[in-house]
């Protein structure tokens, strides 16, 4: 085997980044945007004071927060075709595909976490803010969309981004349904060329650099976006 082989890393860079990292970033981005949107809806349902809506949102977040992500990825991969068939009325399981299945799974799963973050964010806004909006004649959706949620997002931005960093790292779990993310790509090369140390050190370094850069971004944004009262 010899010493540390930098060459194997260099040779595999296009594969690692254009295939592996591209997938990882795509999944992280879509699941974050989808998860925040769905999570915000769940948080509003939870806080609506309407028994059925609040109950559903509560059950949803409790369920997803109690299951390991690997298990959910696995189950969704096998069940989504059947659920899709049931929803569309088709008489055989529909083709979802591993990538779509993963995007849906991560979005649904992350939504449970983003819902809790947004709920805390909404509750951090004094009630008088909403009252002032209503007193001006704004409707519920205007009060939420223009007054409460923009402030809640700003207050929660650091926590939302921290959750995104966790998500970025969790995407490596897609190996269970044979998808290749960045870590999966590194792993394949490592096995093929017998260069485990090089590839796993390099992978760790890349994860660290990106996560560290994101958390620095969190700090900068925190200082910049904090709402002054």
């Amino acid at each position, binding site marked *: 085997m010899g010493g540390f082989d930098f060459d194997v890393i260099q040779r595999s860079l296009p594969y690692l980044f254009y295939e592996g990292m591209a997938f990882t970033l795509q999944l992280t981005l879509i699941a974050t945007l989808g998860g925040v949107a769905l999570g915000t809806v769940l948080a509003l349902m939870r806080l609506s004071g309407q028994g059925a809506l609040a109950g559903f949102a509560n059950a949803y977040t409790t369920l997803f927060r109690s299951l390991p992500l690997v298990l959910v990825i696995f189950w969704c991969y096998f069940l989504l075709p059947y659920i899709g068939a049931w929803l569309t009325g088709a008489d055989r399981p529909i083709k979802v595909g591993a990538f779509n299945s993963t995007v849906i799974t991560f979005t649904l799963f992350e939504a449970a976490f983003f819902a809790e973050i947004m709920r805390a964010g909404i509750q951090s806004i004094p009630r008088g803010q909403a009252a002032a909006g209503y*007193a001006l004649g704004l409707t519920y959706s205007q009060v939420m969309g223009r007054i409460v949620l*923009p402030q809640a997002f700003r207050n929660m931005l650091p926590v939302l981004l921290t959750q995104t960093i966790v998500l970025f790292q969790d995407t490596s779990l897609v190996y269970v349904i044979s998808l290749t993310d960045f870590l999966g790509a590194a792993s394949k090369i490592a096995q093929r060329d017998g260069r485990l140390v090089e590839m796993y050190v390099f992978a760790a370094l890349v994860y660290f650099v990106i996560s560290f850069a994101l958390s620095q971004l969190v700090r900068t944004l925190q200082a910049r976006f904090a709402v*002054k009262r």
Partner: protein
Amino acid sequence: MPMIEIKDVSKAYGAFQVLRHCTTSVDKGEVVVVCGPSGSGKSTLIKTVNGLEPFQTGNIIVDGVSLADKATDLPKLRARVGMVFQNFELFPHLSIVDNLCLAQQKVLGRDRPAAEAKAHALLARVGLPEQADKFPGQLSGGQQQRVAIARALAMDPIAMLFDEPTSALDPEMVSEVLDVMVALAKEGMTMMVVTHEMGFARKVADRVIFMDKGEIVEDAKKADFFGNTRNPRAQAFLSKILQH
């Protein structure tokens, strides 16, 4: 026909009775001051007038619109009744001018130039012509409360409700807010004002209402209220706050 008519309104939180058979009215152009000890239901009463607080029995009629009627379009009614809060409640993520324009554009459908023109005119009127592009956090309490009054006035309200507008202010800022309110009263605005500023009441109030334990115990012309209040609870309250 009165502008605001409160008829036998009661409200309870569970077993706790916040409002007991409250009845009063405010005529067009009239200024009514509401006072009473803390916890007597003043905030609750004034918030029932624009439907921010629901009530269980009785009725409130604002400019002919019944609040007990389930079919009443509450946002539409609220757009016509201005409200000023103890804690200002400016929107901290919006600039001052955006605070004044938001509801003008979203609720009244004014275009941006018209809303801005109105905003600038009102900021000048409350003595803050230079602050339009600042954010609420950059202003003093007194300035914020004047902006809040301007924000309510931007909707061209038929009446204004004030809930202890000066009680969160440092003493040296009270008068700049009261001056704006006095000017408003003299221009003929219909006003219902919860306050313990008896100087304000003496200056511009037409009537004074005294509340205790959810009840309106005294509802008198200003001269009668300050001259010879018959109600012992109101007398005790008055002598207490006038000492300060």
